[in-house]
């Protein structure tokens, strides 16, 4: 007895004609996207009102695979593009989906300022500890002393603890998971989609082709098992305590979940306070 074949629940959210993706076997990016589709599915949102913005990188290709209004921008600039988009279109849920290098190296300034001003964006950062797209160079998140193509003798800089950085600048929702934590990712994304303000989810994910191979750490699956073994759930932890060391424990969990006025709210309330009746609030563009 053969069952009626149902559609893959992810398919609804994907530009299927563009599959298979460019991602390598065992790359963790796709897993996070899969979780994202489930979170969207569960959210019940009008998908027409969700837009995705990516920078450049392997993760930056996410925008191009999601069947949402999607923008593949320039390297490091997804956040300011998204900030502009959101200010012009407050009716949209705007999600930034990009890589560690894109968001925290070249894009670091925008990350801290958007967090500071509490821009109403959900930022998903796939942190594979390297620049995947360009061939495995060191990034601000590469732990000491991992090998990368531009640190062939081992990385020597202290790496960023991204949740702490974002929390320090004022992000209202900050979580970290690994690609192993698929249900937690989906749940976290769902939760964060509901929330307003600057939300940041870091997902540690395997880049087998470059990071793992160069550091002789096996395949994507080995890394997933490593995550399973080494992750420690520390919900609510002080973000100072959640930095990552090479092959050490991985603190995961939801670290921050607070409320404060978003950029738009703060802007509107200040303007209407100062201008009173003279304040003409922004209205949505209409197709004339």
């Amino acid at each position, binding site marked *: 007895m053969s069952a009626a074949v149902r559609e893959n629940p992810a398919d609804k959210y994907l530009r299927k004609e563009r599959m298979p993706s*460019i991602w*390598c076997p065992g790359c963790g990016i796709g897993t996070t996207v899969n979780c994202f589709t489930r979170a969207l599915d569960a959210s019940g949102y009008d998908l027409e009102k969700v837009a995705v913005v990516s920078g450049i990188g*392997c993760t930056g290709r996410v925008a191009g695979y999601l069947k949402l209004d999607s923008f593949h921008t320039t390297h490091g600039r997804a956040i300011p593009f998204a900030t502009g988009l959101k200010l012009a279109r407050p009716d949209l849920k705007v999600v930034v989906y990009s890589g560690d290098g894109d968001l925290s190296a070249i894009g670091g300034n925008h990350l801290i300022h958007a967090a500071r001003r509490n821009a109403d964006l959900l930022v998903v950062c796939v942190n594979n500890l390297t620049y995947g*797209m360009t*061939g495995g160079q060191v990034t601000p998140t590469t732990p000491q002393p991992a090998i990368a193509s531009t640190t062939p003798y081992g990385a020597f800089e202290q790496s960023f603890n991204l949740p702490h950085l974002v929390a320090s600048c004022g992000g209202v929702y900050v979580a970290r998971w690994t690609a192993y934590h698929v249900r937690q990712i989906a749940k976290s994304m769902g939760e964060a989609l509901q929330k307003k303000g600057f939300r940041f989810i870091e997902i540690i994910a395997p880049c087998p*082709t470059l990071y793992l191979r160069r550091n002789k750490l096996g395949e994507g699956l080995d890394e997933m098992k490593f995550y399973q073994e080494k992750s420690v759930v520390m919900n609510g932890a002080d973000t100072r305590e959640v930095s990552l060391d090479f092959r050490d424990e991985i603190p995961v969990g939801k670290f921050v979940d607070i409320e404060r006025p978003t950029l738009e709210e703060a802007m509107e309330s200040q303007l209407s306070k100062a201008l009173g009746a003279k304040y003409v609030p922004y209205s949505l563009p209409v197709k004339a």
Partner: protein
Amino acid sequence: MGPTEIKIGGLGGQGVILGGIIIGKAAALFDQKHSCLTQAFGPEARGSACSAQVVVDSNPILYPYVHNPHLMVAMSQDAFVKFSPELRPDGTLLIEEDLVKPTGLPSTVKVYAVPATRIAEELGKKMVLNIVMVGFFTAVTGLVSEQAAREAVKDSVPPATIDLNMKAFERGYAYGKQLMAAKA
């Protein structure tokens, strides 16, 4: 002798470019010929088809492109499908036996197959399949000298892996010699 054009195609990760570099280096540095290698990535170097093109000549090479290779190495079916139409009717095709099923070739093309992946796996490291191929290429085509090819392998792989790679070369070379002998 005019230029010999070679094209090596396969998947990202198979060491296609390195294979081409060894052949080119053997010719340019150890056989005192001239050679020029150009490479073509897929749009993004992640698992998509890629190729190396090598021109070998006794004269300096200006125009570096390969349009109708005399010699072709195909290490994946994709590469075979994509590149084989470019091969000269009288050209020679070397294929990875288990990964490529050649079809639709003119009968004038000489085809030589080697189970390079299997051999590499026997050596304990699937990654050396490209060096097996280089050995096989050396034996079958005679374009570069055996000695030059050996030197080029040694000069091109990480020092710690020279032994393994030389074994891979020998296995491919031997396989090729045997095949030629059988055909002869």
